[in-house]
């Protein structure tokens, strides 16, 4: 299953709460 990556943490937190879903946050320093 493809993962839809978001860049807005607060929007994702709100969406997770609204849909009662867990949220993964990936903190990276890798070159783009």
């Amino acid at each position: 299953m493809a993962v839809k990556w978001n860049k807005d943490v607060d929007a994702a937190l709100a969406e997770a709460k609204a849909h009662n879903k867990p949220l993964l946050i990936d903190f990276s320093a890798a070159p783009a």
Partner: protein
Amino acid sequence: MAVTVHIKEHPALFDRFDVLWTPTVLILDANGIERARNEGYLPNLEFRAQLEMGLARIAFMHKQWAEAERRYTEVAERYPHTSAGPEAIYWKGVSRYKATNDHSALGEAANELKEKYEGSVWTLKASIWLH
């Protein structure tokens, strides 16, 4: 749902979530509470196992014992050769015990760990259940 945060774009978020090293992956429940944290690179199979452990942990922390046991059982069966394998057996036993109050669930987990993962810290932790 997943979010990616790059240190050059959002350094303040690293402070907000107490992230001091990369890569760090957090798994939060729907209320935004951190339930699992993985710091450092992991190969694909180990990483997937840890993600599924995080989902199991969410069920466990929400006292959804049957769901937690089901998820830990899946991890133990799918990823027996990863570091998550013995940990999943340990928490599978705890989840069943929490659901049933039956101590035999702990003994069964301890025996399974002793048989499959001699030397694992999870086998040591469960060894008290054999007495």
